[in-house]
């Protein structure tokens, strides 16, 4: 790179950002060259979005400097960032659903004609932008956002940034909600934008996309920058190692009895997502006594809906769910709790705990029908209090105080409390969705040990996770979920990251995937 002639589009040095005691970014350096695509790769919670929010003026940094085009800058608000030509496309689109595409694009930057919005000029400008790239937004400028699919909304967001004069574009997990075709279109488009001189930062946790689309890749882990590599000279394996931190050790004792009785038995399960689209399309699975079945996959491939359909939080469209041979397909959430399905939810802050409740009150959550705690509809708070105390002690919840409010606990301690509560519920099957997401290392180990112990004790356990190391460490069998279906089943010891990665990307293991890899238009 010819950094001396042209200053880099963005240079961030020594960026540190703390939230209370948690260090979200620890002395991070990051450089984006002009006209290039730079992927910011890392697990959820590794600090990618925080770093970019600092750049975009959403967060105030605790230390470090930011240079844009060689000039030192301090952005106090997104407005400042935008004025300096930095645009950010958030994971949650910043679009007004009831307004049209045109209105959304020009919002806040409306051309005016005698006091009225000059839609003719706006239309002309937008069509001009669209014609320079392969955009297809101009055809539905008068359509309301709520009538657009997610891929189109994303393009509207990008056009909006370009319309506002952004040279540097930050895309935060832009592919998370898109279909494979939309992803491939988006990556093409990003290539075109870079060719036209824009500089792009591409936040992602998907190895393949980073490799396919970016020129350079910076890996973040636990808030620190692990390193920056040239996309042409690296491999998925190297990136995976950088992301995860170590070669994963598989020193588990071999399984005693892999063949137990089927506890949870699911056939041809179909379920729809919140938007009414089918997200689970014919899943078959069996979880046996004394085993952990791991469901791997990239977020948004139907795992959430699958788990909700199993736990009774989502209606089943068709198919059957049986627990110990008994049909429970049409039962509601409470009936399934009573039938013995325990659930460590994906989102502990909104689902697993009532944030304003004490741990005592939280200990009752999901246990409202359990006999010693509630009798004849009346709660015995003393018993619940003791139960909370037991969970706190046995699951090492800090601080050990039943009266603390859930929101005052760290993520790891919140999660340990939930795990304890669900295990102590004495279920027949345990469904754990991303059981260690955003949790500190110590708590991860603790939770993993508890789940493995539980398996030894003969429990049937289903673990859903997008962390490959977690899935491989815990599972006796692994299935990969892709677009609402199980793409393949592999053995956790024999499989490789590459094989899993390919299954997660929708390729059957072993088939040639060269031509269907998303092409970024930058690297071949």
């Amino acid at each position, binding site marked *: 790179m010819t950094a001396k002639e042209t200053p880099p589009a963005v240079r961030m040095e020594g960026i540190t950002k703390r939230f209370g005691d948690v260090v979200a970014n620890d002395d991070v350096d990051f450089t984006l060259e002009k006209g290039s695509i730079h992927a910011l790769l890392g697990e959820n919670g590794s600090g990618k979005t925080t770093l970019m929010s600092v750049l975009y003026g959403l967060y105030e940094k605790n230390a470090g400097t930011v240079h844009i085009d060689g000039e030192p800058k301090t952005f106090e608000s997104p407005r400042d960032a935008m004025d300096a030509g930095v645009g950010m496309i958030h994971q949650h689109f910043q679009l007004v659903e009831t307004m049209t595409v045109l209105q959304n694009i020009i919002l806040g930057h409306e051309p005016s004609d005698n006091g009225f919005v000059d839609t003719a000029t706006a239309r002309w400008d937008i069509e001009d932008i669209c014609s320079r790239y392969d955009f297809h937004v101009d055809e539905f400028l008068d359509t309301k956002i709520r009538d657009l699919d997610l891929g189109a909304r994303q393009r509207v967001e990008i056009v909006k940034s370009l319309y506002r004069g952004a040279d540097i574009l930050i895309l935060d997990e832009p592919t998370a909600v898109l279909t494979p075709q939309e992803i491939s279109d988006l990556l093409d488009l990003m290539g075109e934008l870079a060719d036209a001189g824009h500089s792009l930062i591409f936040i992602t946790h998907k190895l393949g996309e980073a490799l396919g689309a970016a020129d350079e890749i910076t890996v973040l882990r636990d808030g620190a920058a692990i390193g920056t590599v040239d996309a042409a000279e690296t491999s998925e394996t190297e990136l995976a190692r950088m992301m995860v931190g170590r070669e994963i050790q598989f020193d588990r004792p071999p399984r005693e009895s892999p063949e137990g009785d089927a506890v949870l038995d699911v056939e041809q399960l179909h379920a729809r997502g919140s938007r009414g689209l089918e997200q689970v399309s014919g899943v078959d699975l069996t979880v046996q006594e004394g085993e952990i079945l791991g469901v791997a996959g990239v977020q948004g491939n139907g795992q959430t809906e699958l788990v909700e359909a199993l736990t*009774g*939080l989502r209606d089943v469209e068709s198919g059957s769910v049986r627990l110990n041979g008994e049909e429970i397909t049409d039962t*509601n*959430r*409470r009936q*399934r*709790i009573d039938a013995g399905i325990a*659930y460590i*939810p994906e*989102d502990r802050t*909104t*689902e*697993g*705990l*009532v*944030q*304003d*409740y004490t741990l005592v*009150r939280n200990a*009752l*959550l*999901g*246990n*409202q*029908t359990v006999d010693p705690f*509630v009798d004849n*509809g*009346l*709660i015995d*708070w003393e018993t619940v209090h003791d139960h909370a105390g037991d969970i706190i002690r046995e699951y090492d919840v800090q601080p050990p105080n039943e009266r603390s*409010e859930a929101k005052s606990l760290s993520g790891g301690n919140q999660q340990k409390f939930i795990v304890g509560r669900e295990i102590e519920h004495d279920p027949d099957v345990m469904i754990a969705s991303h059981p260690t997401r955003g949790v500190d290392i110590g708590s991860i180990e603790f939770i993993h040990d508890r789940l493995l112990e539980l398996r030894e004790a003969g429990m049937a356990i289903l673990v859903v996770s997008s962390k490959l190391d977690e899935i491989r460490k815990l599972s006796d069998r692994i299935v990969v979920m892709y677009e609402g279906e199980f793409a393949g089943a592999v053995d956790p010891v024999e499989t490789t990251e590459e094989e899993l990665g390919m299954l997660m990307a929708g390729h059957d293991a072993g088939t040639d995937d060269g031509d269907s890899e998303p092409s970024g238009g930058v690297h071949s």
Partner: protein
Amino acid sequence: MLRASVVERLAIATASTALALLIGVTIVAAAGYDPVQFLVSLINGAVGGESAIARTLRFSTLFILTGVAVAVAFRAGVFNIGVQGQFVVGGIATVMSIIWTAPLLPEGTVGGAGLILIGFVAGTFAGGVYGALPGALKAYADANVIITTIMLNFIATGVVGWLVQNPFRGEGNAAPNTERIPEYVSFPSVVFDSSGFSVIGLAIALATVAVIYVVMERSRFGYDMVTSGYQESAATYSGVSAKRTVVLTMTLSGMVAGIAGAVFAVMIQGYYTDPSGIGTYGFDAIAVSLLAANNPLGIVPAGLLFGGLESAGSHIGIYTDVPVQLIDGVIGLVILFVAVPELFRMAAVRTGLGGDR
């Protein structure tokens, strides 16, 4: 935390009332009346003597009951603005059921007690049904509860107003009123020799507070309800059906409002009249509940405060030349300030009195 918030609530209640009164007194003075005399009659009207206290307690009884009705719903995150309507519907149901069944029962104390029971059951039931309606509309048609309950208030007032003018009007009544309920259908005064107030009414209110407190704090249903109010997704996770909870919450809230209506009908009015003229207990109750942070126990002091203000208003209207409308306005100001706790929090931070934010 809870203690701090109780202290804070008390401070906000005191500050709201003080600020509202200060504005009231300023207006009194500016309008050329004697502010000192105004304040003295205010206190006299609330607690000066037995009849004033009885009157205060009479209003407080209603504020406590309607306040609890609001608190039940607000605690569960359901914005029932329709307590006024449920109160009215409960009241007319009480009066009419007593009038209709009176000929079937013997006269005297026993018959009276029986009729009161019938009246209360009818009032509670009618209030519950009238509350369940917007609950069901929310659960099954996603109709905004705030708007439907406001509308149902007007409908209750209008329909009952028409009923007492036409089919339910007592024979030979010049005014649009129902017949009176029989003399013997009334609460014995016991302590105060005052028409329109009986300790039994207050006891019913306090018992209702106790029952609701137990339901909210100790029953599974209450836990489900309150959890829905705090964090609906967590409630759903724990097996609570959001739809069912909305309907049940609104039913319970309406039932308490119905009890308030029954107390009003039996203890105070003795007949039913055009509801547009009976006072806005169901609306004031929102402020009462808010002042008490929607805690059933906190409703008692908050209800007493509002009862005192209302009572002082009646007194001032009768015994001073300050227009009674002023006190209505001052009560409105109290409600306004109660709605803005942030105002006092910020003021406290500014003046260094406390409140860390």
